């Protein structure tokens, strides 16, 4: 399926569905809802197979790769959806890498969307465990408040790994942080003598390579999310500038404004190339991680700057929650902070360039 699959057609189908199911009005209204994700939207996506996108065909997934995931995340970013899809992508990779029997059952739940997974970043501070029970706190776990499965980073006898924990297991409590970006949330997960179930321990043999793969996929997905958001918020802003009049003229005719728009558009054309490139490099290519990290740092910053300016270009209405640019700004700023701030990533990019 994967080889001849037309990704452009797929991308179009993502956008078309979301334009109908998650229009601007819903996105704006959702901000005040105090939910951790939108259950109807999530099950509709699962029904369309979006949660099965990268799962292996042998397990009932669609078997598509990082490029397909990038198109999906670009569409999610464009529509600012409150759906924990990043966790689905990463959990699919993580569970697929274990080969353990216990992972299979979890994978089925991820594929059908019944499991919403919060996955710790590979460089999260690990929670110590003896492999039977686990106690400690995993801080700032993305999308944990709405999740029913938690993939927590652990250290077992000095070796890094992961453990899959049901969010409602005895001894688990989650402190929810509401974020400026209400489409996502963070949780501090406290584990108090939680039993580790059969097959729930993930101890990868090639740990560093798996960490790199997860980082790479996350960075590509976040960069794609930012790209979609940047393109969407600029489009909305241009449309507004074509109808809003001041001093008897459309504000889109003012050179001081439209030149900024032109710069933003040109930056996004370059950003799109970076995302497509980072998403299509084979997993085992030496350059895959460098491309993903540098792309994430760059594209997240580009979109954050664009979204910031789009509020300014909207003027007074941009400052009201009734208009959507603020949703994009908030999401863009969170994307900048996830999986390494710009400075942290650039230091790593410099390391990689010097080592090359």
């Amino acid at each position: 399926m994967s080889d001849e699959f037309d990704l452009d057609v797929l991308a179009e189908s993502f956008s078309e569905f979301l334009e109908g199911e998650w229009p601007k009005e819903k996105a704006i209204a959702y901000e005040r809802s105090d939910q951790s994700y939108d259950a109807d939207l999530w099950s509709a996506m699962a029904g369309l197979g979006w949660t099965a996108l990268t799962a292996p065909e042998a397990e009932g997934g669609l078997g598509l790769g990082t490029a397909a995931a990038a198109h999906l995340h670009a569409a999610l970013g464009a529509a600012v959806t409150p759906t924990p899809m990043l966790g689905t992508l990463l959990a699919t990779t993580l569970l697929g890498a274990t080969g353990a029997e216990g992972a299979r059952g979890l994978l089925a739940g991820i594929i059908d969307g019944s499991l919403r997974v919060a996955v710790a970043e590979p460089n999260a501070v690990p929670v110590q465990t003896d492999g039977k029970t686990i106690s400690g706190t995993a801080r700032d776990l993305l999308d944990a408040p709405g999740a029913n499965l938690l993939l927590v980073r652990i250290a077992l006898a000095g070796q890094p790994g992961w453990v899959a924990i049901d969010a409602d297991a005895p001894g688990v409590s989650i402190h929810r942080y509401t974020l400026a970006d209400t489409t996502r949330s963070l949780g501090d997960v406290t584990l108090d003598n939680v039993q580790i179930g059969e097959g729930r321990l993930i101890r990868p043999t090639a740990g560093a390579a798996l960490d790199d793969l997860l980082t790479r996929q996350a960075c590509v997905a976040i960069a794609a999310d930012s790209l979609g958001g940047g393109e969407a918020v600029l489009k909305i802003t241009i449309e507004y500038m074509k109808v809003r009049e001041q001093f008897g003229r459309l504000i889109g005719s003012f050179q001081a404004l439209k030149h900024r728009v032109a710069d933003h558009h040109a930056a996004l054309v370059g950003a799109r190339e970076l995302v497509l490139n980072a998403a299509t490099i084979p997993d085992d290519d030496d350059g895959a991680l460098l491309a993903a990290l540098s792309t994430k740092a760059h594209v997240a910053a580009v979109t954050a700057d664009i979204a910031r300016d789009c509020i300014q270009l909207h003027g007074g209405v941009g400052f009201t929650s009734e208009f959507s640019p603020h949703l994009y700004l908030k999401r863009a700023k969170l994307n900048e902070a996830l999986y390494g701030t710009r400075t942290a990533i650039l230091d790593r990019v410099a390391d990689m360039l010097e080592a090359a």
Partner: protein
Amino acid sequence: MTQTSEALAPAIDRTAARTFDPLSKVGDEQAFRQEIRDWLAAVLPADWRKQWQQTRESDLGGVMTWWLEERRKVGLATPHWPKAWGGPGISFAYQIMVYEELSRADAPELDIFTISLFHTPATLFEHGTQDQIDRYLGGITQGTDIWCQGFSEPGAGSDLASLRTAAIRDGDDYIVNGQKIWSSSSMHADYCLLLARTDPNGKRKHDGISYFIMDMKSPGITVRPIRQITGESEFAEVFMDDVRIPAKNLIGAEGNGWNIAQSTLSTERGLLIFGSTERLARSFALDRVDAKDSWMRDVGLRREYAGFYAELQAIRLMVRRLLAELEANPEKASPTLPTFIKLNWGPFLQSYSEFLVRAEGLEAQKWQPSIPGTGHSSRLRFNDFLKSYGWTVAGGSNEIMRNIISERILAMPRG
């Protein structure tokens, strides 16, 4: 300043010279590339940058002609020419490989032949008469003739169509009066592709412009080189005072000059910018190696350097896409991509070269003569920085690019 060219090639053993024939390897990509690499290692002096830097401007034509001649010996003077023009007729993919290998080896650019090798043949073959082709093509392929372009005027820069140089028919001649500016290499040129107004009463300002071949040795022509902020002179002003151009030197129909100029402006099909971005990529990689014991040890500058990596990659990927689209079908290639490339590339060059000036401190302040043939990657920090305005101002300034993007591409209202 580090001269990196030393590392390029092993010591040249000229006694063991063999003949090189890359064109015979077309069809085998690896062999083709290897033949070009071997040839470059054999003919390109490791210190060519130093030699060219010491060349006086008046002798520049000579050294560049030498390099064109070396390329001609192996059939690579005009790798982009189709067979009908007398070129090798290799596929676009192989043309790209030639440019890639030339950039990788830091072979000199042939700036002063840009018009001769790209615009003139495209114009002659598309719009010229057989007599014009027969008369002028030989001088180009033999590398004896240098061509320039007489388009811009003091009052017609970004707004080219408002040009005022007048050509008035007088028997078998046109009599031309006016002034051109920013005419690259015109001080070295033998011929000029000239745009002049033959009908001042056209309905639109684009009407009434005609396209001529002007012999630069004609009486009445004065060429005054423009000293640039880099200290060198790549352009000149060309003054025309009752210059007679034979009517047979008109290209295409009288009054059709604007359309002809538009159709040949982009004849280089992305190859020149490709060469330029690949050269910069090579230079970018060397910069961090050269600075490993200096500014790459400063956490802030190192981070800033790393930030440029994605910007450069984005531009290289855009250029690659442009080439891929042109290779697949020139008719279907994105008409907007070149504009986006330009508005990314110019500002990138400027900010990266400014960064290097800042990072290298007083060392970068020490003035050195420019190095011809190195484009925007001379690696003389201040020169490259100043020269970057060539991309932000020339060929449609950033501001014009922003108008084009916002009004023509994004359909925002005109001011």
